[in-house]
Structure formats: C-alpha cells, structure tokens
C-alpha cells in the first residue's frame, strides 16, 4: 500500500486529506500522478498541470521522477508559506 496525503489548498480542492492505494502499479511519483489525474479536472489541474506542485516521499522533498515502493508515504501540497 501507499499512504497518500494532501495538504492546505490541495486538501480543500481535492476534498480529502489522505487515502491508501495499492502500490503495485505505481513505480514512480509520475505514474501515480497520471493515475490520480484520471479522477477528474480538479485532480488533473492540481497534480498534472501545476508547476507549483510540491511532492514529498517519506518526509523528504521529492520529484515526479522519484520511484515508489510499497509502504511509501507520498504527500502533495502547494509551495510552503510558514514562518
């Protein structure tokens, strides 16, 4: 399984904060995003066509090219604005 989290505006736009998905079919973040983008326009805009998309895998900043394995925690969020 993969644990997937959505934060801030992403959480609101996509209407969920987290979910679990079967890991077997996703080899990279990019393939996971492509699969999620088929859910509808909101998903496509937030994850596929968004140059501001930030990705973390297992609490480290990651990219679309980062590979995934079962048990990984993936998070999608907008640019951070703390401090």
């Amino acid at each position: 399984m993969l644990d997937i989290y959505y934060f801030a505006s992403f959480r609101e736009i996509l209407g969920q904060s987290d979910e679990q998905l079967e890991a077997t079919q996703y080899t990279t973040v990019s393939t996971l995003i492509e699969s999620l983008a088929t859910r509808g326009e909101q998903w496509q805009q937030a994850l596929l066509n968004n140059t501001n998309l930030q990705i973390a895998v297992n609490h480290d900043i990651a990219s679309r090219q980062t590979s995934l394995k079962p048990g990984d925690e993936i998070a999608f969020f907008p640019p951070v604005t703390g401090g």
Partner: protein
Amino acid sequence: MKYPFVKVQKEDFDLSTEIKALRTGHKDIGAVVSFVGTVRDINEGDDISVLELEHYPGMTEKALEEIRLEAHKRWSLQSSLIIHRIGEMQPCDQIVLVAVSSRHREAAFEAAHYIMDYLKTNAPFWKKETFPDGSTRWVDARVSDKEAENRWQKSASPTQ
C-alpha cells in the same frame, strides 16, 4: 524527544524562557540572536482577523531539524532552537522563533537569518487567512522568499 531543539506546538512561547534554555549548559556564549515572526494585522492591503497554520506532522520536524543542523555545519554555533506554532492565531501573536547562540555575533546573525530563509521555503507549513467578513484565503508563496533562500547558495565562504 526526537528533536529537542525543534518544537512544533499550538501553545505560545515565552522568549526569555526559551533563550535561557538555549543558553543553559553551553559555555563561551557571547552572542544570542533571535528572530520572532508575528501575525501581521495587514497582508497585501487586507485586514486579517485570524491566521491558521497547517503543517505536515512528521515531515515538519524533520525539515526543521535538517535546516538547523545545516546551520551548525556552516557556522560555529553553540546552540540553536526553532519553535513553530500551528493552529489558529490572532494578529500580533507570535508564530515562530529561531534563536542561535555563538561566541561572536557574526555567526549568530548569519545563522539565524539562514535558518529563517530556509524555513520559509522548505518547512511544510501553510498559512490561511480569515478576513473580517469571514472569507478565507490561502497565503501565496512569495517570490522574494525563494530569492532569499537562493542568496545563501551563492555565498561560498560564510563567515565563521
């Protein structure tokens, strides 16, 4: 505690108390620089009623600790501390504290500034503003924050 010098908390903090703790057990401290970020009552011209801080539990603490340790690699520091609040805050509330102690002031000033610049662009916090009419807005990332971070990558030889 996993990261005793990083705290992510709902509660407010007292500057004197935190600085005292920062200095305790360290000898040869001559300089303590602290930065307190506060909730502005105006942002981009609009009045703000409430500021809500969301974060990514687990990643936040790790990111802050990495920034802190990188500062200790770059400068000769005695101790450092990062506190970042989460949840709902009002204008003038304290949001964040970065404090650094060192022998001489140059290292403390630079390291505190560095930690804040990196925190702003690398720690997973998000601000949401509520206005007097009840409407809300996610705060946009500032280009100037990214530029501030990039500045540190150019400086090949930081002051020790």
